[in-house]
């Protein structure tokens, strides 16, 4: 292992970590701003220009608040909960391809921390671990509301993980690979093969798997515990759900991990279904500006897609009311899973017909 490779990866990891924290911090501001706009208010606008320093103020407040560990709680697990939530939120971004390779000082750098060939399985593993942070925190609080929130989170995440996995299988049947880098590369450009009557088609997976994407985004909402699936912290039934007893930085870690999760799942959705870093006329751009600049443009495009999805998360949150718990489980088990299985069957039939032709 050469030193340059090590430096490259360390820099990449640091940058991605910093970006995901920065995006998460500003998502808190964006959430409040968007909530305000949708409700005819202006939102926070005192700290800095139009509230641009509000995340720093919020973070500062979280740091300087008193940390309370309830006497009846299990102190070790009480601290472990938010740490685990934050950790699992942060490591998910390791397999996401942020762009094509760029060239710096004669060295080709892949804009992906690691291209493991089971990238999607890794994402699934991290997502499943995410519920442990909530579960441990809620249980360790030794509070009925927290425990209720934790139980809800656990059963909800487990139910929706199945539908999420099944909705992805149809996509994997088409792509034939689990590596996120290959899946992103397969969606090269935007339109492939001339006019539509010459057999041209959209390359992005959304146009091949609209139902799969719908199922996936619903499950992503549920996995991130966002409205309309925010039953684990439903504030008018369970005070604040699993983080009722938390204060100070540990509460901040929980809230922060929710926004990082949102960022990562937006990135996964953009990569899997909306072409990742690909954009229309990218071959033209590559020949005009050179591959490095075109790749950087691709990163910008990916971030635009991610920001759109984050906006969509918030837009949904301030539009749709929360599900009742039995409705939630009904939707997960009796609607999404059968639909996902039907999607697999249809995809299989269509792939076979296309191969036969």
């Amino acid at each position, binding site marked *: 292992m050469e030193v340059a490779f090590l430096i490259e990866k360390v820099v990449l990891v640091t940058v991605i970590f910093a970006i995901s924290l920065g995006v998460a911090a500003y998502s808190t501001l964006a959430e409040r701003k*968007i909530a305000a*706009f*949708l409700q005819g*208010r*202006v939102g926070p606008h005192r700290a800095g220009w139009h509230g641009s320093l509000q995340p720093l103020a919020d973070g500062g407040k979280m740091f300087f608040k008193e940390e309370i560990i309830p006497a009846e709680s299990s102190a070790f697990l009480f601290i472990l909960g938010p740490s685990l939530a934050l950790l699992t939120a942060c490591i998910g971004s390791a397999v996401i391809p942020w762009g094509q390779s760029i060239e710096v000082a004669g060295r080709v750098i892949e804009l992906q921390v690691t291209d493991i060939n089971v990238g999607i399985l890794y994402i699934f593993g991290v997502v499943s671990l995410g519920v442990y942070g909530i579960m441990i925190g809620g249980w360790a609080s030794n509070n009925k509301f927290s425990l209720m929130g934790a139980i809800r989170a656990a059963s909800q995440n487990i139910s929706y993980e199945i539908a999420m996995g099944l909705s992805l299988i149809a996509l994997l049947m088409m792509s034939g690979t689990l590596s996120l880098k290959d899946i992103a590369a397969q969606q090269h450009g935007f339109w492939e093969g001339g006019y539509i009557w010459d057999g041209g088609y959209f390359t992005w997976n959304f146009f091949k798997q609209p139902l799969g994407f719908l199922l996936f985004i619903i499950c992503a909402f549920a996995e991130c515990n966002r409205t309309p699936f925010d039953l684990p912290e439903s504030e008018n039934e369970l005070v604040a759900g699993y983080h009722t007893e938390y204060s100070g930085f540990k509460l901040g870690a929980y809230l922060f991990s929710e926004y990082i999760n949102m960022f990562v799942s937006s990135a996964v959705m953009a990569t899997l279904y909306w072409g990742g870093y690909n954009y229309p006329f990218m071959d033209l751009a590559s020949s005009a500006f050179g591959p490095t600049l075109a790749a950087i443009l691709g990163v910008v495009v990916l971030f635009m897609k991610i920001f759109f999805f984050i906006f969509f998360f918030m*837009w*949904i949150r*301030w*539009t*749709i009311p929360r599900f009742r718990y039995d409705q939630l489980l009904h939707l997960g088990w009796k609607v999404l899973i059968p639909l996902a299985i039907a999607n697999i069957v249809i995809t299989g039939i269509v792939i076979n017909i296309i191969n036969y032709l």
Partner: protein
Amino acid sequence: MESLSNRKKVLEQKPMSFMERIYLPSIFKGLAITFRHMFKKKETVFYPEQTRPVSENWRGMHSLKRDENGKERCTACGLCALACPAEAITMTAAERKKGEEHLYREEKYAAVYEVNMLRCIFCGLCEEACPKEAIYLDGPVVTADYLRKDFIYGKDKLVESPFKS
């Protein structure tokens, strides 16, 4: 049951149609509504800089009035304190000395006049009780503070500022 008023309406609950049951059309309708709201006029009043107009019978902070010559009208008769249902008003009376005629209208005046803003319910009974038209609740909103003692407003805050001449 027989309806006596003939105004009874029987609500029919039809089973939802397929389009209603998949919810997505109504979700998109809702999304369109909230998106439209983003571009509507914002209702926010930027409070300390802007204030909302108040009605004519608005009751805010008390002010102790002066007469047309700039003399304090209050004679410390105590009727406002008597009328006060929340026991918020206290005062100490004093006799006007020679040479203070330009300050106080009558021979007796309030040396100390305190309103406890935590007790006050802004009912306006003191205003009605006052025979000298000396107290009116025509001030701004009473602001928040940190300490209980700071809510006891003395004459320094209550008395109208002297006329500029």
